[in-house]
């Protein structure tokens, strides 16, 4: 029952989308290559699944996102901790971060193509930019928000070195914020990879969509969009599950 209540809003959302979709078709009667009816999209979905083509694209997109996101986390979390703990590092880096952060990862796509061509490196680069800043900013905030009295408690309880204090107090205290940052950065990375693949790729869900546009197959475009949405939700759920498991904050 509880499970049902949790997924009920998602089912409701799906019903609402299909209803609006079908209403638009009934009222405006668009050409089928512009907006196909749901059954045709479902058939295309099935087709792409059975041939395995869909999974190839999902795998391509996921591989890029996961590697770029992991790379971003590896740089952003230690850097964020340093910025949060050491005022001098923050003073030095904060202007740089504030300058680059407002630039959408999409604005980096042209440079990424110029520098890396349309190979994997360019896309990993774009996703890295998209995933990096949310992870960095949440980590800095999490570290700065640590109650100083917890640090003092750690010190009087035998954390004599900086590294012991870091491992035993600073990191666990900041963990809820760090994980939130990683969750958000996976989401922004996921959005960035689709955009990067729209422009420059021969595989991936973004490519599936842009290819559908080029060959006037709106059903293929819509299948791509649906899969992006569903995977986005699934990954968010996965992160929330992990969050509840390993982190002490209330979510």
């Amino acid at each position: 029952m509880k499970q049902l209540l949790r997924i009920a809003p998602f089912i409701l959302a799906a019903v609402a989308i299909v209803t609006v979709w079908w209403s638009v078709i009934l009222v405006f009667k668009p050409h089928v290559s512009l907006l196909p009816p749901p059954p045709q999209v479902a058939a295309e979905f099935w087709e792409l699944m059975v041939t395995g083509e869909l999974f190839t694209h999902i795998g391509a997109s996921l591989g890029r996102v996961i590697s770029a996101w992991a790379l971003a986390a590896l740089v952003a979390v230690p850097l964020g901790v340093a910025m949060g703990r050491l005022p001098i590092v923050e003073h030095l880096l904060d202007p740089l971060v504030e300058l680059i952060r407002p630039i959408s990862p999409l604005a980096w796509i042209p440079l990424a193509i110029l520098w890396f061509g349309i190979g994997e490196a360019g896309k990993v680069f774009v996703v890295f930019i998209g995933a990096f800043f949310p992870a960095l900013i949440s980590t800095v905030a999490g570290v700065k928000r640590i109650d100083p009295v917890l640090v003092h408690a750690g010190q009087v309880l035998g954390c004599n070195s900086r590294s012991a204090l870091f491992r035993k107090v600073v990191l666990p205290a900041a963990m809820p914020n760090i994980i939130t940052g990683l969750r958000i950065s996976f989401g922004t990375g996921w959005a960035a990879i689709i955009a990067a693949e729209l422009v420059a790729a021969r595989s991936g869900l973004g490519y599936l969509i842009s290819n559908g546009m080029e060959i006037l197959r709106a059903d293929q475009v819509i299948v791509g969009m649906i899969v992006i949405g569903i995977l986005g939700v699934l990954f968010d759920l996965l992160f929330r599950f992990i969050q509840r498991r390993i982190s002490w904050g209330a979510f």
Partner: protein
Amino acid sequence: MATAGESKPISIQGVGKVFVSATGERVEALSPTTFDIAAGEFISLVGPSGCGKSTLLSILAGLLDASSGEALIDGVPIRGPAIDRGMVFQSYALFPWLNVIGNVEFGLERMGLDKRERREIAMNYLTSVGLKDFASKQVNELSGGMKQRVAIARAFATKPSTILMDEPFGALDALTRRSLQKQLLAVWEEHRKTVVFVTHSVPEAIALSDRVVVMTARPGSIKSVINIDLEHPRDASSDAFRDYERQIYGDLDAELAKTFALEGQVAS
């Protein structure tokens, strides 16, 4: 384990603290203060807000450096925090990512004890503060009074020579406070640590301490030291208790008047 657990004397020799603000303004929080505390003694510091009593406690903890003089534990100058000096904070300072027993075990783990030993010691101390059945609870499930009992168990569990308590019961209601005072006394009488206890409450200071140190308004210095010659358990309604109260409030009132005058000057 035998060498740990010995309580040690504290010698405060001309310890003073001047804070320098970002604008370069110097504020003297504590004038150079000299005072000796015997091993196993329970000392309370009372005084008006901002008199430097918490500053002095932080210096003893090693969390703050003195601007002048030095504090010695058993003849050894204090340089930074150490597990030999336990601390109990007003805001409990429990680690929310650890459960109750995890908090009590924290210092024991830092001392390098193995899992089984840690568990056993932590359980003993939880039992002595009446929280045996709460060992596996999360700390955010506990009331304020229970949190502070966990913090007390955590501070005593590592057998420090000294326990520094910074208004530990300040955030608790009167009844909880009373029962925690009793539990603290029971634990202290069993383990006989040197305790330095900062409080705003005169009755609390009298109920617990061997000596009460009354501090002056900022910059803080020692105004008077009152020996409390009463057997435990102390009856707060007895005449002798009341006499001590009268004496200490007398000393404090003069200082409070100064504090208010000082604050008046700042305000005008």
